[in-house]
């Protein structure tokens, strides 16, 4: 579904990505794990055109989307939930969801989606009129996911959904991600919390300072000593 070939990104002298190749097959959960600063976020930001690519190609459903503008990419079905959630704190939950479905002009379809999001996240339904800024971290993450679902994504990319959340909530979030995936949405997940991510992933890539150093099925990577090494620098 998504294919990345030789993706290189430099920002002001720093080589954030040094030519990575990745495949995201349809209907799967793919994860990209790695320590801080390994280049995970950069990869996702490049896919949606928020970061300028130095070289390499990105294909989505067989089409080259390299260098296209963000709005077009989002409209074609790739939705990114950015790191730190970035919900609009000054808007209500409902308004956040409306903006999530910004591109959908048909009121009926929009209402159906809203209904759907409310069933997935009953907590949001109760508090549609509340300002999003007053939410806790976990609730904000749910809202961010709900907002993304409003765009009816074909490929949902999640940037560190567990960041700053308590373990119990992380578990909850990961269950929801699995549910979303089961409903037919392809998921590309990047995580620092490698265990949680690899456990639900069909396939995983390990990124270390701009290079993919390991790849394999989730279960495989989970038991791999090298993953631990990549994180803790244990020689």
């Amino acid at each position, binding site marked *: 579904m998504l294919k990345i070939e030789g993706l290189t990104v430099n920002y*002001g002298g720093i080589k954030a990505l040094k030519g990575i190749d990745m495949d995201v097959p349809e209907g799967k959960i793919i994860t990209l794990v790695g320590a801080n600063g390994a280049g995970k976020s950069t990869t996702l930001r490049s896919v949606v055109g928020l970061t300028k690519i130095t070289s390499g190609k990105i294909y989505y459903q067989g089409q080259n989307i390299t260098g296209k503008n963000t709005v077009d990419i989002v409209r074609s079905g790739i939705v990114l939930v950015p790191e730190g959630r970035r919900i609009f704190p000054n808007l209500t939950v409902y308004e956040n969801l409306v903006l999530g479905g910004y591109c959908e002009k048909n009121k009926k379809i929009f209402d159906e989606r809203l209904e759907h999001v409310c069933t997935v996240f009953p907590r949001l339904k109760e508090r549609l009129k509340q300002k999003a800024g007053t939410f806790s971290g976990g609730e904000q993450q749910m809202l961010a996911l709900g907002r993304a679902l409003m765009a009816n994504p074909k490929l949902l990319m999640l940037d560190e959904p567990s*960041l700053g959340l308590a373990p119990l909530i992380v578990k909850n979030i990961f269950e929801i991600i699995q549910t979303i995936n089961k409903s037919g949405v392809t998921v590309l997940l990047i995580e*620092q919390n490698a*265990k949680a991510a690899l456990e639900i992933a069909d396939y995983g890539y390990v990124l270390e300072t701009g290079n993919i150093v390991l790849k394999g099925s989730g279960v495989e990577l989970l038991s791999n000593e090298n993953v631990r090494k990549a994180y803790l620098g244990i020689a």
Partner: protein
Amino acid sequence: MYILRTENVTMKFGGLVAVSDFNLEIKHNEIVGLIGPNGAGKTTAFNIITGQYTPTEGFVFFNNEDITTCSPYEITRLGIARTFQNIRLFKDMTVLDNVLVGNHLRLRSPLLSSVLRSPRYRKEERHMIQKSFNLLRDLGLDDVLYEKAYSLPYGKQRRLEIARALATDPKVILLDEPAAGMNPQESIELMNFIHEIREKFDLTILLIEHTMQVVMGVCERIYVLDHGVTIAQGTPEEIQNNPKVIEAYLGVN
């Protein structure tokens, strides 16, 4: 006897507790690491020590002197210098000028005598230039004295930032992710470099780093923060085998 010490430092931003009850103790000439996952509060801790933030609670002591409420420039004058996570050089100035700016705080002559180039000022300026040159030579940057800072390759920019911090004659230097964006080879060089400057300038070093190779290789003691809480401290071996740390980094299932 600690050269740098924090006592129950807590920092709140609105409802968010960025750092809570942080107790750091660094002895003279130590190299100490501060690690933790994204958003753990490491840079906030740096900003508290260097005076960018005043903590909500707690104290910072430098040589037993309370510096909690000092402003950043006063702290630098006392002898704590720092570098920044996303290199903050004076981009449009030359390499030499960047380092000379680090000398400005020790200048005694008033503005007018610098413009009139009084003998006293000229003596000070000569001294400053000579000192900066020696520093740049020691750090291997003497071949780019008159290049603009922005034109340097990334690794050299990192070095220059350290050189500039050293120019303020610090006793303690705080390095915020010095190895960010470096490849393994450069990281190894950086480790040697950190050891070297400690010997040469009799420094005490506190560093934030994500590249574990560097942290484990260079630090004598490590503090681990997670969600603002200090979850562990100890030698690199202790840290690497501490289940709490592994959990914070690799996550739980």
